[in-house]
Every structure is written in C-alpha cells, then in structure tokens.
C-alpha cells in the first residue's frame, strides 16, 4: 500500500514538473489521490466495520480521516476544475499551454 502511494506521488510530482498545463493538472489530481490514500493509511487500514452505527459492534474504522478525506475530495474537485478553466482560458488568450512559454509571455 505504502509503495503504491509512493508511486502515485512520484508520478504526480513528475507530471507537475512538466511543461504542459494539462499534465500539471493531472499531476495534481494524482497527488490528491495519493494524499487521500495516505490519510487512510495513517489511520490504520481496515480495523473494523464501516463507521455506520448499527449497535452491534464496537469496532469501527476511524471515521475522522474519512470525514477529512471527504472534505478534501470535494475541495479538490473544485480546485481541479478551477485549474482546468484557468488553463483553458490561458490557452485561449495566450495561445499556449506551456508553462515555460506562459512565463515568457508575461515578461514581454
């Protein structure tokens, strides 16, 4: 599990460092996935029933990280779409989706 989280992060970071805005956005979403899984991991995987009270068991998985992740998912949805539109608009206005060339455009 830890390894796959590591891979997610590595690929995400690699994509973020690339020049294409699209890849950067995809990279952030991969890193987000990785973070979510990391949060799950930190809270110990699978040590009980789903946190829906049924009066029978005392062992539940930790609901707190789940609540955190839920919040994070929704926020990252908002952020990703915002990024997306930003990239899209930048492309329309500046004619490139290359982060390096965007910078040059700014310097002019």
């Amino acid at each position, binding site marked *: *599990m830890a390894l796959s989280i*590591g*891979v997610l992060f590595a690929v995400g970071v690699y994509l973020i460092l*690339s020049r*294409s805005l699209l890849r950067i956005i995809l990279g952030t979403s991969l890193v987000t996935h990785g973070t979510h899984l990391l949060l799950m991991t930190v809270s110990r995987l699978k040590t009980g029933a*789903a946190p829906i009270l049924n009066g029978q068991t005392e062992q539940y*998985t930790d609901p707190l990280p789940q*609540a955190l992740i*839920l919040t994070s998912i929704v926020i990252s949805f908002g952020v990703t779409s915002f990024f997306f539109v930003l990239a899209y608009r930048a492309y329309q206005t500046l004619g490139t989706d290359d982060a390096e060339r965007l910078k040059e455009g700014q310097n002019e």
Partner: protein
Amino acid sequence: LHAAILAPFLFAAGLPLLARLLRRIHPGWVVFPVPLALFLYFLRNIPAVKDGQPVSESVSWIPSLGIHLSLYMDGLSLLFVLLISGIGSLVTFYSIFYMDRRKEDINRFYVYLLLFMGAMLGVVLTDNLMVLYGFWELTSISSFLLIAFWHRRDRSKYAAQKSLLITVIGGLAMFAGFLLFYLMTGTFSVREMLAQIGTIQGSPLLIPAMLLILLGAFTKSAQFPFHIWLPDAMEAPTPVSAYLHSATMVKAGLYVVARFSPFFAGEPIWFWIVSLTGLITLLYASFQATRQTDLKAILAYSTVSQLGLIMSLLGLGSASVIHGDVAYTKATAAAVFHLINHAIFKGSLFMAVGIVDHETGTRDIRKLGGLIAVMPITFSIALAGSFSMAGLPPFSGFLSKEMFFSAVLGLSNLEMSGGQIVLAFIPAAAWAASVFTFLYSMLLLFKTFAGPRKPGLPMANPHEPALGMLVPPVALVSLAVVFGLFPNLLSETLIEPVMASILPGLLEPNQSFLVSIGMWHGWTAEVWMTLGVILAGTALYVLYGKLNVMEKAVPERFSFSFIYDRCLHAFEKISASLTQSYMTGSIRHYLIYLFIFVAFTVGGTLFAAKGIRWFSGSYAPVTLYETVIAAVMVLAALAVPFARSRLMSIIFTGAVGYMVTLLFALFRAPDLALTQLVVETVSVALFLLCFLHLPKLEKKFVSKRRKMANLAVSAAVGALVTLVALAALAGPSFDTISHYFVKESDELAGGKNVVNVILVDFRGFDTLLEITVLGIASLGIYSLIRLRMEPGGTSRALAAEAGRKADERRAVLPRSNDVMLRTVTRSAVYIILTFSLYLFFAGHNAPGGGFIGALVAAAALVLLAIAFDIRLAEQTVPINFRKLTAAGLAVALLTGVGSFAFGQPFLSHAFGHFDLPILGETELATAVLFDLGVYMTVTGVAMTILLTIGKDDGSWKS
C-alpha cells in the same frame, strides 16, 4: 526617572495635536519646556549622586528573559543626562529662531528631536543591556530621520543611509557582545554583572565580547575608519548637527566605552585598541579638518578628532587599572573634562556657523570673509569657541588640553609589554594633532570673520541674527569661560563621581577621586608644548595659502567613503544577481525548490527520529483484491506520463481515481467510495468538456538533463512518502480522538453515519467554509469564462456577439444522435435524481449525505446534457445554478445562525424523530437542514462549472 525618559516620547506623540491647537506660536516653544524641566530635575540630583547615592528605579518588562526597565543614575549617567537635557534645551531654543515654521515641516522636526532625546536618555540611564540596545538603535533611527530631514535632497538621503548602515552594523555587533556578557553572567543588568566581575574577567569570552562592543562604540562615535558617516551627516539642519552629531549621540560610544571600562580596563589589549584608535582618529581627522572648505565639514572632522581625543584618553586612563597606579587616572579625568568642554565649545561653534549660514546663505570659507564688521557678537562667540577648541587660555578647552598633554607625557614612565616605541610616539602624535587642531580653529575663525569682505554672497546684507539665536551660544561660551577660570566647580560635582563609575576598582568604599584642575603649574613641559603648538600653528596658518594643501587633495579613490560606496554598490549587485539566479520566474523551478526542501526536512526528521521502519508485524492482512487493485492503480498511474494523447492520459488518471474508489470501498469507507465515484465521473465529464478546446499534447523536446532532474525530484518525493506511510503504519499508534465522535454521534447529533455527522454537526463550521470555497471557485470559473475582460469596456457587446456566433455554429453541429443513450437517459435521469434525494435524506444514518447526493444530481444533469444538448438541459431544468449556490450557502449559514435563537453556540443542532412517509421513521435533525444547504450549494457549484465550460466553445478566441 521613568517619567523623565517617557516625557519626550509623550510629547513627541502629542506634539502634532498640540501644535494644531496652538497654531499661532512656533512649536519649538511647546517643546522647549521639556528638556529644560529635565535639566533642572537632573541638576537637583547632583548632590545625591556626588555623595555616592545613585538613584535607581526598576519596572519589570519581560521578567522571563531577565529584561527589566531598570534605571540607574550614577555619576556617568548624570553627566550624560545633563548634557542631553542641557544642550537639548539650548538647541531647541536656538532652533525656534533657526527653523522657519512657515517653510519647514517643523512639527516633524520636533517629533524626531524629542524621539532622539528620549532614546538618548534611555541609553544612558538604563541598567539593562537589552534596554540599552533598544534605545541605542532608536537613537540611530532618529538620527537617520533627522539627517534626512530635507528628504528631497539626494545628498541628505545618501548621508542618512550611510549613517544608519554604519551605526546599525556596529549596533548589531554590540548586541552580540551583550549576549556574550549574558552568557558569562546570566544577567543583563550591568550592576549585577559588576558583582560578578571576577567570573567575567576569567572568561574566554571576554575578548570577543570586548571587540564586539568596541565595534558598536567606534561606529557610533565615528572612530577611524568608521568616521566617514559623520561628515556626511552634516546635511542635517544645523541644530541637529550641534545636538546629535557633536554633543550627544556621537558620545554614546564614549558612554559605552566608559560604562564597560570596569570590565575591560585590566586588559592590555583594551588599553591598546582604545588608545590607539582614538589617537589615530584624532590625528587623521584633525589633518582632514584643515583641508575642508565648508564650515560644517571643518566642524564635523573636528568633532571626529575630538571624539578620538576623548576615546584615547579613556584608553590611556585604563593604564591606571593595569598598574594599579592612581597617577594614570589623570587621563580619565581629562577625558571627562574634555567631554564636557567639547560639548560646550562645539555646540557654540555649530550655532555660530548656523548663524553665518543663516545670514549669508553659504558656509564656504572661500566665499566668506570680513564678517567681523557686521556680526561682532557672532564673531565673539566663534572666537571663544575656537580658542577653547584650539586649547588657548582662559577657556576651558585649554585646561583639558593641558591635562591631555600631561597624560601622554606621563606614559613615558609606563611599562607596557612590547610597545615602548609606540608609547614614545604617542606624545608626538598628540602634539601634531594639537597643531592641526589649532590650525583649523584659526582657519574657521579668521577665514570667516577677518580679512576683506568678499562680494557675491547669496544674501546681500548679512547682519546679526535674531536675539534668540544668540542667546544659546552666548550661554555656552560663558560656560566655557566660567569652567576655564573655575574648573573645580566641575571637578567635585561631576568629574569625580564619573570617574568613580568608570574606574570603580581603584577605590576603597566611601573613598572618591580627588581631581584638582588649575590654570598654572609653573613652566612645565605642558606649557612648552602649548607654546609650541601656538607657534607651529601660526606658522602653518601664515603659510597656508602658499602650501596649497587644499589643492593637493588625496585622490578620491583612496578615501574610505569611496570604499564604502564601492562595497555598497557591490553588495547591491551581488544580492540582485543572487536573487535573480534562483527567482527565475519559472514555476517549475519554484516547485523543485519546494519539493526538495520538503524532501530534506521531512526526510531529515524521519531519519533523525529513527522513524524509518521497513517492517513490523502489525500490518493488516492484505487480500488478493487489494493487491490487484493497487497493482492496477500503480500501472495506470505509471502509464499517465507515457500516454501519447490527451484522451489516454485523462482516461488513465480516471482509472487511478476509480481504483482509489475501490480501495475506499475495501477499506470500509462507503461514503468516501460513493463520493469519489461521483466526483471522478463528473471530473472526467469536465475534462472531456474542456477537451474540445485544449491543444493536443505536443511531443515537446525536453532535454535529457531536465528530464533526469524531474525524475530525480519526483522519485525522491515518492520514496519519501512511501517511507512516511511505512513509518506511520509501523510506528506507535496514537490514541485517536474519534472515539468521542463514535460514541456521541447518535446521542448528541442523532445520526448513525458518523462520517456524515462529523461533517455536518461536529465539524459543521469547516463544512460551511468548505462549501464557501467551492462557491468561490465556481464563481471564479464563471467569471473566467463568461466575463471576458477585454480592455476598453466593450466586453459585453463582444460577449453577446460571441454568444450569437456560438449559437449559429451549434445549430449547424449535429446533435448527439445516439438513440439508445437518449432513451435510457430520459428515464435514468429521474431515477438518478430520486436516488440523489434518497442519498441526501439517508445521509445521516446510512452512507450518503449532502455532498454525495448533490454530486449525483449533478451527474444526472450532466448525463442529460450529454445525451441531448446542453441548452436543452438548461431549459429542462430552469434553475439559475449560481443563485442556487447562493441560496444553499444562505440556508447553511442561517441554520447555523438559527441556533443563536435558542441560546446555543453557532451551528449547534437539535434533532427529533419524525415519521416520514416512504422513508420510514427518521430522525430529522436541524443538521439535515444544514445538509440541505450543502446539497444545494454543491449542486449549484457543480452545475455552474459544467454548464459554463460546456456552453463555451472558444469561438471568440482572440
């Protein structure tokens, strides 16, 4: 005493207001009583201090750090406060006539002046080194402000910056020295340090502390080679020069040297550094002064040289401690006496020069001459001042000069390790410096006042100034005469107590120094030296014009100011290029910095805490499903960078998302799985919508080096995160705080789905802010797409036109003609919407909730839009989603506020059980209402985003 320090600050704060109230009079009159009252107050303290009863008071400030506003007034402090308040009152009085309140920003001037006065009093009165340092820097800052008072002149700005840089660098060094003292003694109080003087003198930190403190003192007192800021500081208004840059602030360095003499005086190195620095300064600056043509520049260099004189006397006086011989204390007495004399004659000279400047419009001695006829009183003042400075009887300067000579002559008996030649040289240097001093004093006096009148002055008819400008310098020169004739007025009242503060080690308890100063001791060596000075000085003066010293100026590039300028320039350049080398403006570089930094700090912490664990037995058993899913996820992720087309990379990313969803499901997180599933779907839809307009992934040429760097960074981050995850798994488990939530969820909030209850109830405030963020994001997107910020305000027209074009184009485009899809959609939409509502209501007890329900609803609408047409979808569901967002937020907020009505804190929920049709018995909590707000907001946000992007077709692309 605290009130004494506070008074100038309070007045400074209140001055603008007071000045407005008393518009008619010069604000100087409002200020003048402050230093005067202080002066009288301090005068009253002389008897007590003389009898060895220092005044002391203390107020705690930061007791945990041992920093107290403790004030302590012994002889040394008393001398300085008398100087500060005495000269301060005279200068204020003088400035009332010097500064024109109609032309200058006079309030600002006095605010700065009072600021300085208070700070300077603080420096000399406090017993606590930290407080001393604070006030010390405050004097530097107020000096900076006063030098730059005419802040539109470039020279003023340059001078102010120079003085600030040099004194503050010295101040920092001194601060470090103070800290070393703290390390040695564990206290910041000077008196407590004196009690531990034995520990200090045995400490290896003594010499570094000494050097650092001396650096501070030398920069402040303009000692060679840090003297360069003082001549430039003459850009300040003349009262400021008279006050700060000759009488008080520059003497703060002397104060510190004197204050720390008890600790250091026993060290030969102290003797050498202080004496020789002072002597070099004296000689160099007095020679420089003879080469100046500006009256204030002469005075500036003369100030530097006189400060050097006092400094060297303080150093020579320390020989008495080394040898335990009271005879050498004569130098210390001379230092104290000359300190007073210098303040007196230099103050009067500055005021006289100020008068000349004020009345003639120039300070250049080449243009001046013959003023004796029109300004006899000013001439008399200048005469007395210069003669005192030159060391001529009967003025007090003569006496201190004599004492200086006898002090250096006394050195011949001194046995100092390894420096006999230097010691023999000192009297000669002192004599030469006195000759130069005599020379520039005479130049100053006679070039200005004697000789023929020269035409072409900026002001045609110079005459005596207003009476008010004459009173202060006259008062000062009469003091010079009084102290010259009756020096022992001072010796008992001030000099002896001051010496007791500087050299406490030489005294038995209840004993005091005996200083007796007389005008005439017979035909001693000192008298012959003085006569020699007069002869040589006069000869030089006569030859002055022929020697043409002024023309033979040393080239500019050898001066210290030149070095300073060069250094400053170089620093600016280096720092600029350094900054540019890493602030490249490329986001990739910044990200790499961030990642590397994170990798190093987190990795380093892990390593340091020995948190790296490879294995521990407590892993949960890994099932086959998990392995497979994780493997698929990893493969999909790895495939993303290699994807050739955009579509592929998006699909791979989506695959990763779905695998995460499955993992959530496996890890017993149904809410997460649901949410992730829906979000993933909606996101992919979003990607595809944008897709239409984004460029194809180009195969870009990326250099190999760059690729490797990216790879290395990402691999490092990946490895690090893996390690963190492993460490978290293997490390000791923390007690989770969730037990509380699990236990109280049902009882307190009436919900069985703990995750949902946490979101809407326990942590409702977070959620409220979260949906607010979402709303902002959606509005951002909306405005990015819809409100085209074209320059020139034609945006609306342009947008309208673009919209029409889009409509035309869309009309031509074939609609989706997938009959299957459309048929299925028609019924599916309702099913999905119902399901969404179910999720919403069930959310409190079963998996589901506002977020999920809303996203499902959004998904339904997206399906509708894809199957038919976005416009059709919009017509079918005629809701303004932006308004829906706002309404949702309002509902959520009102629910929260509503709890106020019941006297509960924000967002506390009530709940009750209701029988709802179809859904069965349910606990209807107000939390549900809050969740409704969430539901509405999220639906609104999602739809706003999707519809805005979907409807835009980029046809207006510029």
